[in-house]
């Protein structure tokens, strides 16, 4: 019997440990990632129950949300912690201590590979096709870019996985988004996903797992695929997935935690079976033509308020907060800050994209531009290519890795009433600091806007190649 199955289905079914009527499936979890904010109470739960961690090798920790992205006076980030607020400091030290106690490898403050949880793991080859991956963080869907089932969970669920390697989960419905046409020159993954969210809405994906397909996705780098899967949650879906291919395997080859030698060959052979079969049935199929896609930016306080860079700002109650005027073109809107970073766009390809536009140019007067690499690995690679110099010469800041201005939990924030063009994923009220105004965009659009001091179309800037 050969029934056509979806990619999601193949992975889910191979991870069901127990299935009983009237109950959610007990699903086996291959990899759990933890960070300082949503894990401390989960460790306490284990202590309370006198339990060890089921398999410490299947958990990796890192610090990202609360760490300062500036160095202390002695050039050390740990010393900067002294100046961070007391609770942030406690959360970070607690994670390092908890990991040590339970035998979990922690990419803590002193580890040069640490970074935003959804950046550092793919960097190291921890994220692999066919896996089930969880993290106490809603943007865990990022890892689906490798053809894995990856989703965000609550703190109790974090403890369940720590203690049993399993979770009770009900299978979501399936959605296929098929992109038609090729991405026009000057547009990329961020524009594609913002366009998609604008089309289906912030709750369009609720209760679904979304598979992304079509030439536009196939042509994307792994970084681009991660950008798309990352923002799946902004459309209400907890899962986003892309079938693995040569691009995926090339990314993984020789990465620290990727299989090696014969095991690698066997793994790749198995990964090649991870795709939705011809004729597989989805609960919902959406086709989106991308051949007219423009660079996208948001005008409101939800990611679905994305419009093309040459569009006019539509009327909306959200303009009360965002301070924009209906009827005006969005291009030309003044900005005060530029943030390049986050688990959406803090990877090497994103930094290259921004640097290419900034090379030999200056950030406009009165604009503060902050570049925060997604991880230590990304930071080192970027520095090896001289990207840090490009940013610094242009007048931007080059920081230590972390979540930083994506959610402003670490002391970095945008002042009330100021506007930031940001490569992150959420433009909610107050997300970048109380009263802050956020415009979401791609690294290219953010960099072009930095130069002009106003929202600008990156396609209209000439680029100096290195």
């Amino acid at each position, binding site marked *: 019997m050969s029934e056509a199955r979806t990619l999601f289905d193949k992975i889910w079914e191979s991870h069901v*440990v127990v299935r009983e009527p009237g109950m959610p499936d007990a699903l086996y979890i291959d990899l759990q990632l933890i960070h300082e904010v949503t894990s*401390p109470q989960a460790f306490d739960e284990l202590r309370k129950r006198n339990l060890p961690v089921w398999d410490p090798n299947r958990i990796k920790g890192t610090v990202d949300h609360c760490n300062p992205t500036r160095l202390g006076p002695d050039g050390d980030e740990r010393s900067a912690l002294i100046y961070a*607020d007391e609770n942030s400091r406690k959360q970070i030290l607690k994670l390092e201590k908890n990991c040590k106690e339970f035998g979990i490898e922690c990419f803590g403050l002193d580890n040069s590979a640490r970074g935003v949880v959804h950046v550092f793991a793919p960097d190291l080859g921890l994220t692999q096709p066919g896996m089930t991956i969880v993290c106490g963080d809603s943007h865990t869907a990022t890892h689906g870019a490798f053809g894995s089932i990856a989703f965000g969970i609550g703190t*109790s669920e974090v403890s369940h996985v720590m203690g*049993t390697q399993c979770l009770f989960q009900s299978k979501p419905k399936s959605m296929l988004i098929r992109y038609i046409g090729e991405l026009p020159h000057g547009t990329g993954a961020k524009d594609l996903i913002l366009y998609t969210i604008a089309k289906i809405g912030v709750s369009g994906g609720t209760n679904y797992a979304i598979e992304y397909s079509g030439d536009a996705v196939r042509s994307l780098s792994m970084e681009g695929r991660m950008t798309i899967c990352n923002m799946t949650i902004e459309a209400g879906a907890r899962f986003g997935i892309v079938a693995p291919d040569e691009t995926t395997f090339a990314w993984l080859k020789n990465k620290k935690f990727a299989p090696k030698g014969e095991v690698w060959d066997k793994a790749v052979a198995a990964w090649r079976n991870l795709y939705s079969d011809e004729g597989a049935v989805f609960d919902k199929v959406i086709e989106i033509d991308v051949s007219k896609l423009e660079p996208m930016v948001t005008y409101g306080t939800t990611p679905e308020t994305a419009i093309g860079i040459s569009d006019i700002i539509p009327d909306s109650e959200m303009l009360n907060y965002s301070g924009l005027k209906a009827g005006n073109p969005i291009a030309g809107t003044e900005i005060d800050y530029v943030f390049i970073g986050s688990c959406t766009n803090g990877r090497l390809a994103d930094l290259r994209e921004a640097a290419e536009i900034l090379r030999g140019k200056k950030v406009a007067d009165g604009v503060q531009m902050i570049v925060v690499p997604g991880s230590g690995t990304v930071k080192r690679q970027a520095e090896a290519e001289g990207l840090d110099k490009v940013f610094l010469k242009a007048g931007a800041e080059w920081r230590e890795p972390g979540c930083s201005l994506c959610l402003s939990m670490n002391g970095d924030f945008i002042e009330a009433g100021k506007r930031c063009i940001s490569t992150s994923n959420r433009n909610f009220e107050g997300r970048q600091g109380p009263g802050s105004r956020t415009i979401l965009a791609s690294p290219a659009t953010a960099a072009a806007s930095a130069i002009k001091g106003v929202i600008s179309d990156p396609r209209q800037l000439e680029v100096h190649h290195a």
Partner: protein
Amino acid sequence: MREPYNTVTGKVLYLPIDNIDTDQIIPARFLKTVTKEGFGELLFHDHRYDEEGNPNQEFAINQYPGNVAEILFAGDNFGCGSSREHAPWALTGYGIRTVIAPSFANIFKNNSAKNGLLLIELDEQPYQALKQIVENNKDVDVTVDLPRQQIHADGSDFSFEIYPFLKTCLIKGVDEFGYLLNLSDRIKAFESARGER
């Protein structure tokens, strides 16, 4: 193991307001913490205390001196907003074991299930009838009989629906974690079938 939920009789904290979000249940500024403890004191903080930190006597919770209500009677879409699990922690920390409302937000539902907090979604007609009873007598004893899926108050009975698995967990006093731990042999078998361990 947590305290098994069988039949609970108690006073009602009466808050029939729609769209009570997680920020009202537990304000965001209290989240930077490393424990689950102490949230009961902070439940409905900004309604419960005035700016000087004195109890606001207008607010329902302060009208039950020394008499912690175990049942919260709320309005539609209770628990909307962020995914913070601190919201159920605050409710159970205070001593609430049951919330009755016309509907609950999705993520809040999920998080409550993990914390032994019974959420009862009542249809319009029984909801309004129960509301009348409590409104007329704030001191009424309400009984929630989970095995029979019934609420008794002032001589009236109202039945409710619940996901069978959740009911089992609550009645046995095992949460999902306990349930998963009971599966450890099967988890090990799964691992060895995959050629691990």
